[in-house]
């Protein structure tokens, strides 16, 4: 959103047709209306949110920054931020380490094209299952009385009582996070595995001639080439952690207590359960601004070709 000003080729009308070639004119006739409308569609609700955030929830009385104060003073907000932080701290390192390990293992150990294709195919599957369906699967695994995990644990004698995975504060967050790890580790694997394939052969061979161990190859050479992809993964996964909603919503609904109430679930609750539209709008504005700032700071590092 923040970048839209770069796009709007405002000089078209002011400068007169002479400055542009026919192609450019055609290009701008296509781009200006469509980008202009999208710009309005994206910006108008934001403006509306700002207005809403300055008004009382019932009636349109102007209340200044009252909603912001209420929103930012609410300890539940910080609990939600904390939960999001814990979730990210559980999910990101696990996914990256598992995905990296798997990519390394497959790259080193499996040379057959068919087996590699099999791994590729299997890794795609969890990525395309709707999070809601993944939530259903997780229910079947974790739920009390029907959950398979409890059944196996009791069968093997690890525990004698049912563990209420989703109902106790200590286990709920790891259970919810495990679902994320299940769904997104394959993404990390796919990205990093394709990264391993881009490492120049001659560098590896030169290292092998010099007698470098497989471990040294990984730390000194391959990791260097994977670095931009790791940056990319962290950003994409962070953006996704901020949007996590679906599977948590149907697994715990944010509970027990507020232990799994991530930021997105908290905003949902303020708007649609407490119906505090003013506060919800204020929080939305704060989140949008925070994200724009973070985004404009980190975007330069992303290894995307923008030609």
């Amino acid at each position, binding site marked *: 959103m923040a970048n839209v000003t770069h796009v709007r080729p405002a000089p078209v009308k002011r400068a007169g047709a002479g400055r542009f070639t026919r192609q450019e004119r055609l290009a701008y006739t296509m781009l200006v209306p469509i980008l202009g409308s999208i710009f309005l569609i994206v910006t108008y609700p934001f403006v509306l949110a700002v207005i809403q955030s300055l008004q009382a929830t019932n009636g349109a009385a102007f209340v200044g920054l009252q909603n912001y104060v209420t929103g930012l003073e609410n300890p539940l907000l910080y609990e939600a931020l904390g939960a999001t932080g814990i979730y990210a701290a559980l999910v990101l390192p696990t996914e990256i380490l598992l995905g990296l390990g798997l990519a390394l293992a497959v790259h080193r150990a499996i040379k057959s094209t068919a087996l590699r294709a099999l791994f590729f195919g299997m890794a795609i599957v969890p990525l395309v299952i709707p999070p809601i369906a993944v939530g259903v699967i997780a229910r079947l695994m974790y739920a009390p009385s029907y959950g398979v995990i409890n059944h196996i644990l009791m069968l093997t004698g690890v525990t004698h009582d049912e563990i209420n995975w989703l109902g106790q504060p200590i286990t709920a967050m790891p259970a919810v996070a495990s679902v994320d790890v299940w769904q997104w580790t394959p993404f990390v694997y796919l990205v990093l595995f394709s990264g391993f394939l881009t490492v120049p052969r001659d560098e590896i061979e030169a290292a092998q001639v010099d007698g470098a161990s497989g471990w040294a190859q990984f730390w000194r050479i391959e990791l260097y080439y994977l670095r931009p992809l790791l940056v990319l993964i962290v950003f994409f996964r962070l953006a996704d952690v901020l949007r996590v909603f679906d599977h948590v919503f149907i697994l715990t609904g944010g509970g027990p207590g507020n232990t799994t109430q991530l930021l997105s679930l908290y*905003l949902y609750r303020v708007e649609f359960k407490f119906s505090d539209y003013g506060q919800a709008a204020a929080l939305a504005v704060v989140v949008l601004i925070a994200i724009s700032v973070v985004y404009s700071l980190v975007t330069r590092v992303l290894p995307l070709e923008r030609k």
Partner: protein
Amino acid sequence: MRTRGRSWRAVLIIPLLAVILVVYAFPIYWLIVTSLKSRGQLFQATLSLLPEAPTLQPYADVLIDRGMWILLRNSIVVCSATVVLALTIGLLITYPITRLDVSPRVRAGVLNWALSLRFLPPIAVVVPYFAVVRTVGLYDQPLALIFIYSLFNLPFTIWMLKGFLTEIPREIEEAALSDGASRWTAFRHILLPLATPGLLAAGVIVFSFSWSEFLFALILTSSPNAQTFPVGVQGLVTQFEIIWNDMAAAGTIAMLLPLVLMVLARRHVVTGLTFGVVREK
């Protein structure tokens, strides 16, 4: 080194495959098996790995008795329309920046802006969109979802189409243009056929992303008039007493369509998810 490497490989591959099989194949298998059980089989003391008398009854219960076929139809309508709209807008934006001489700054600006939309968390815009949608009378209308899904699918539609279009050499079109064809003719008869595989791939991915979407559907709809399938699935999961086989049947239906579609576009899934950074050959 060679021989040591080989045995090391075998030791690694087998447990690796076994773990993946247990962790990934089993839950999906369990979902499908549960969806094939009759209600009586659900609460047997032992969990059977195979359904004793597989039945499609839960599917009939979910789709017909609970009326979720209407939600399925809504989902298909919304997703198809989203594909058409997102691809059309995507082409309108990517055609000029890849096929016409625009300044590199405009091109980079458009792509950056599309990328920034990708980082927009839906929940932050849900609040104002909810208000807008209600004001313009689109609450509980499929049209609201179509617009919003198209918008949120634009970022990677743009990046994917940009990738596909750049791969088609401009010379092919220019040859036709210098033979006197109009831009439209050149687009329609030369570029479009060449871009079709890319458009199909992007379309498949837009379809399954929209198919999976839940938050907007939950908030912007309230009745079977516009509710999509995931909203129905959610209803089965969060109700007081869960009917496990029905829930599993609904989950299976939600899962199957994107899986089938992705078999077609599997080469492009990762490309789409990473904005073209990762390319599968």
